[in-house]
């Protein structure tokens, strides 16, 4: 487990003082079918982008709050990583995109019949968003619409 005490002094001080947004009240959707009938989608904050798609913009003040769509059949090894943060080790995701966007693993679970299927589209964000107002107002509703349109029953989210 990463713990705050292990991070650099500057980062730790920032994280301690930062006014985190608390989700309240905590919403609760209930799964009304077994996993082997659920279509599953993924959200990663690793800033992954399909080659040729617009890169994330590290210069956006408060953080680039846009998102990119990753099709289920994307070639994972070809995805470009645009995460701007220097507060984590990028080598793992560089070596294996499944570490942050486990699409291959999800396909294996679907093939084994453990989940009903893999959603056709997945979502990539760049996590370093210090001013999340626009993320909540503009991006989150679009992400909801995308997964709802694709009939996703379950969405798993992976921060880096």
């Amino acid at each position, binding site marked *: *487990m*990463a*713990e*705050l005490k292990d991070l650099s002094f500057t980062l730790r001080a920032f994280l301690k003082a930062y006014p*985190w*947004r*608390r*989700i309240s009240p*905590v*919403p*609760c*959707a*209930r*799964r009304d079918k077994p*996993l082997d009938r*659920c279509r*599953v989608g993924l*959200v990663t*904050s690793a800033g992954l982008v399909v080659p040729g798609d617009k890169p994330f913009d590290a210069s956006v003040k408060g*953080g680039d709050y846009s998102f990119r769509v990753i099709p289920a059949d994307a070639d994972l090894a070809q995805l470009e990583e645009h995460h701007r*943060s220097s*507060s*984590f*080790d990028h*080598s*793992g995701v560089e*070596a*294996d995109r*499944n*570490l942050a966007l*486990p699409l*291959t*693993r*999800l396909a*294996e*679970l679907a093939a084994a019949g*453990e989940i009903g299927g893999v959603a056709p589209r997945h*979502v990539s*964000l760049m*996590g*370093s*968003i*210090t001013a*999340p107002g626009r*993320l*909540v107002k503009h991006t*989150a*509703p679009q*992400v*909801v619409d995308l997964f*709802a349109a694709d009939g*996703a*029953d*379950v*969405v*798993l*989210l*992976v*921060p*880096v």
Partner: protein
Amino acid sequence: MCHQTVGLVQGALEEAGIVTASITLLAEISARIQPPRALAVPYPLGFPLGEAHNPALQLRVLRALLALTERDDVPVLERFEP
């Protein structure tokens, strides 16, 4: 910051009726954000599914995450035991 970004999108999805679960590498931060369901994994930042090129471990994490979607006693913050 990744944890807040993911958590806020997670809240919106859950609000819309889509069942969600997220990984957390920083349980202390997630406890403050309160996503509906989070799985605390014992790995460093940048390694949410454990290890690169370790499909068996990645599958175990993924299965534990999927199992959390059954829970409705939110907010759930569960520890992953590898």
